[in-house]
């Protein structure tokens, strides 16, 4: 725990963490981006990672997903120490992510973006392609049916044969979440899923995230929209200047002067006086 943290339980109902990190630090050419991120993400819950711009939220997400190596510190998925593992190994443990700026696989169709997601596909082996084509074909058929169902759920079914690069910004956000869902994640990191998205789509994405929670997926989302955080997040982590400032429920954090000073400020006042 870093100084200034509110003493509230940081773990889920059964006290188990799906993801945790201790004293993560990361600098870029002498500029400290993360200076001591320490928190637990409760299993089966939706946790928000909030903080002012430049607090190090995306850097932390990049480190947690293995896309960036930390200078020091440790992290675990469940009970497995995955400190500085490569991202594909972390993904194989069931941690999937989306990106702040959508990174769709633009040359692939919307459907193919989902089909690429399942791990260890039989058809990804040269031996299976030429000597066990039936097995690869059966699995591909099952994956395609599941992908079409997911696309239907996410309202992208009619766009299935479009190249992903042709989608709008909001559709790309949906596609990224759908692609992560296709990989059947245990833990899902969402980096600003509502950014640049119209209010109607915010409603839908929030609904999808709640659905994922109901299916047992643990969600950690970087989010600036406090209405969304208040409505769907069970737990909040506040980062400021690269370190964990506080953790707890948003309603509790509103009373924390450090949090208010560092991030919430007039937003809280404005929304509570309405």
């Amino acid at each position, binding site marked *: 725990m870093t100084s200034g943290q509110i003493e509230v339980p940081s773990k889920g109902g059964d006290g188990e963490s799906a993801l945790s990190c201790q004293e993560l630090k990361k600098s870029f050419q002498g500029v400290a981006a993360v200076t001591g991120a320490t928190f637990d993400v409760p299993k089966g819950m939706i946790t928000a990672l909030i903080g002012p711009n430049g607090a190090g939220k995306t850097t932390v997400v990049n480190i947690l997903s*293995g*896309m960036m190596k930390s200078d020091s510190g440790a992290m675990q998925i469940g009970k497995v120490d995955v400190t500085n593992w490569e*991202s*594909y190994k972390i*993904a*194989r443990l069931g941690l999937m992510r989306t990106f702040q700026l959508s*990174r769709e*696989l633009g*040359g692939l*169709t919307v*459907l*193919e973006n989902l*089909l*690429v*997601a399942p*791990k260890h*596909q039989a*058809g*990804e*082996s*040269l031996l299976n*392609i*030429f000597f066990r084509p039936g097995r*690869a074909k059966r699995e*591909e*058929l099952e994956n*395609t049916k599941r992908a*079409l169902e997911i696309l*239907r759920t996410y*309202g*992208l*079914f*009619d766009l299935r*044969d479009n*190249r992903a690069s042709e989608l709008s910004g909001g559709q790309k956000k949906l596609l990224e979440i759908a*692609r992560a869902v296709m*990989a059947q994640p245990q833990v899902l990191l969402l980096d600003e899923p509502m950014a640049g998205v119209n*209010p109607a789509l*915010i*409603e*839908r994405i*929030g*609904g999808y*995230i*709640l*659905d994922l929670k109901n299916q047992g997926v643990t969600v950690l989302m970087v989010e*600036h*929209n*406090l*209405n*969304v955080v*208040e*409505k*769907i997040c069970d737990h909040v982590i506040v980062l400021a200047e690269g370190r964990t400032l506080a953790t707890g429920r948003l309603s509790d954090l509103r009373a924390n002067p450090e949090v208010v000073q560092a991030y919430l*400020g*007039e*937003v809280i006042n*404005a*929304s509570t006086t*309405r």
Partner: protein
Amino acid sequence: MSAFWYYVFTLVFFLFDYFILAMGLNIQYGETGILNFAYIGFVALGAYVTGASSMPSSAGTGQQYIMGWGVPFPFSLLLGGVAASALAVIVALISLRRLRTDYLAVVLISFSLVFYDITNNYVPLFNGADGLYNVPEPLAGIFKLTTNSFVPFFAVVTGLIALVMWWAMSRITSSPLGRTFRAIRDDDGVAAALGKGVFRYKLTSMLIGSFYAGIGGGLIMQFGGSFNTTSWLPAETFVVFAVIIVGGVGNNIGLLVGSLLVETLLIHLPAFLPEIPGHPGLIQYIDTMVVGVLLMVMLWFRPQGVVPERVRKTPMSLLQGLKSDRALNTDVPAMSVVGDGAGVIEEGGRP
């Protein structure tokens, strides 16, 4: 056989051979995004190994070379492909794991130059700058072929080999493996975040592409009966790049079209045209310039090539019983969180 048909079948041979070479480079660059500027080096190794393994021992031949096992066709050809793949493993282990596309390209072109200099100067390997010659014509003894009849025969053999290799490549590119290659091409960071071991897949792509390079090179050796360092100047790699860029990156049919337009019509056809009086060799210089101009024009006006990469549509059989989005709008979940906009933090931490 008349000279005309001799030329035609020579062009047919190069059409199919460069189709094979283009398929190999396409899976590396067009499908996986590996900018392999050393490609011609793998072609050359395939040619040398095919030739040296099919020739008898070098003693008394007036040449110096390794192997000299007298391996019959097509096993000598396969050895050429396997040797190029083996070299790809070494190159991939050195360069693919840590280098991004642009740095990788520089390292690979350097590798190509080093390999070229070693082959050119270390005579005991493949007879130095003179290269290998008098390589036996494959199957000529069995089918009692003359020098004239060998050309159409081997052009047809090359066509059959190209057909088999096209079938195999189509299986790969239309499989989940091909899709993963394309995912890595589009964004290897995302592919890794989806659990794909990017290095392993790039290595696989290098292996497959280099095998095709080795086979293509081996066929050139078997067709011409000789091969030396003037046949594979490092810049030759860019001719194969021109084939796939003009034809259509990521499309096997486009590669055949590119091979026809660039290699057959622009590179080899002018070699059979009569010289311009007073300007010997001018036509061949011009055709190289034309390839360069064509490449620039294509990249500027039609970067997707003559036959673009096709969109892989969902099989209709899988769509039966599934409704469109419009019929399902009422199923979309909602969380009812959007208020009047208060609480949305903008730049600088203000609502």
